[in-house]
């Protein structure tokens, strides 16, 4: 998709604003987004400080920026593009990403379907949560036989936990 402002460059930034109760959405290229005052949605966290120190030291940067060992992304790369480089980045930059994740989703831990590669502990926890919500439903619907069955399953799982 091309930038809606200049119509020339590829749009990479999606802007949503609510003006007088009307939702407006735009797709902008980084240049136009910058010009219109929309930075990356990661805000300016962390890396600016390093830059500032870097310029004080006259090019002798205090420490090289942390990079993902898998794909080579620095957090600055991610913050600038709004795109995470690879799965490993989520481990490498977990602390740095967390505030944005919290802001986007309002929550920071997953519930729902698990990949087969998920840890056993998580699988058990997930199964328990599912059974408990089923139990609640069964009790509400007065399906007591089903509820008893579910309760046994929950006990069994909790013993293995």
């Amino acid at each position, binding site marked *: 998709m091309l930038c809606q402002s200049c119509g020339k460059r590829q749009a990479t930034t999606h802007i949503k604003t609510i003006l007088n109760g009307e939702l407006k959405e735009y797709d902008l290229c980084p240049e136009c987004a910058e010009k219109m005052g929309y930075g990356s949605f990661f805000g300016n966290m962390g890396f600016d400080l390093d830059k500032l120190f870097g310029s004080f030291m006259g090019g002798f940067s205090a420490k090289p920026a942390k990079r993902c060992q898998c794909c080579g992304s620095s957090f600055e790369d991610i913050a600038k593009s709004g795109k995470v480089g690879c*799965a490993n980045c989520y481990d490498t930059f977990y602390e740095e990403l967390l505030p944005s994740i919290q802001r986007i989703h309002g929550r920071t831990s997953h519930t729902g*379907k698990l990949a087969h590669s998920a840890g056993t502990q998580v699988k058990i926890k997930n199964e328990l949560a599912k059974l408990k919500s089923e139990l609640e439903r069964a009790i509400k619907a007065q399906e007591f036989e089903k509820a008893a069955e579910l309760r046994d399953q929950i006990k069994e799982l909790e013993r293995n936990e």
Partner: protein
Amino acid sequence: MSENKYTALKDVSDVVISTRIRFARNLRDYPFPCRLSDENKRKVASVVKSAVLDGHSAISGRFQYIQMSELTQEEAVSLVERHLVSPEFISDRQGRGLLLLDDESVSIMINEEDHVRIQVINKGMSLESTYDLADKIDTLLDEQLDFAFNDKLGYLTQCPTNIGTGMRASLMLHLPSLKESGAMGKISSSLSKLGLVIRGMYGEGTEPKGAIYQLSNQVTLGISEQEAINNLRDIAYQLVTQERAAREALAKNINIQDKVYRSYGILQYAKLLNNEECMQLLSNVRFGVEAGFFSEMDIQTINRLLIEIQPATLMKNIGKKLTPQERDRIRAELVRTALMQPQVPSSHRLEE
């Protein structure tokens, strides 16, 4: 929440045009597409392709693989118009592949924003069955591919807005009465507080055409697939109720009646129709069908037309490139023929 609460609203096809479920998945061993070399793009495509095509499931044999770079521009745009791929997917087609089920209900995009995007689309309101199929295909792929998954953050995606379930559930809604009454602005701002978003017909960054909107969940982390779907369904049913109430009031208005019947007249007799006008007129007539002005007309005919009149799909079906004017002529012809079947205006309208 169970579906029976809404038995009174059971058939909501007047408002809900289609249901779509999309999963974003990535392979653990490759960088995400933004950092993927051309060679690795090819590898990802081939790994995903064989996981689908060489699978043991009965569904495997029904997929065809399309190398996106080999399509003509019209064929590619038509995929977007038919809601089979995202607009972003065809903006740069190099290294991208598509697995398409024979009835076009399932499309798997390879190397879009994520390595794998599984999408299932169905007519009308069918969140449960659409989710079940998407879930089944995802499980099938999960058995053969090592998906990037983190115990805390769930499925990992290139954009942090999709982590967690990686699921986007959307309903395509026709809301002409709410639009006409000027309520859409207020609705969309209150939806964002509920973790939902309402957008134009082709999703992110598109304007609503012909009062067709896409309602989808925004939050994907910390909310299970089932909760997100229930949430979406609840809100959709509220919108259906509101749309119907607003429609009832509007349908009595002589100016609106006039607009609908004029729209029908133009669609029946026009020789040239451009896309935008045609969308608007079809939307008006669809409103008329919903409000019971045209008892004989099937709403599915209009749903079908809303896609077939799109420029690239029009050219794809004709099989050649057309100038804008040729398109307008063929579009008018297409609509005229489709509406030709006897459409008797319902009697209560004639009494007035």
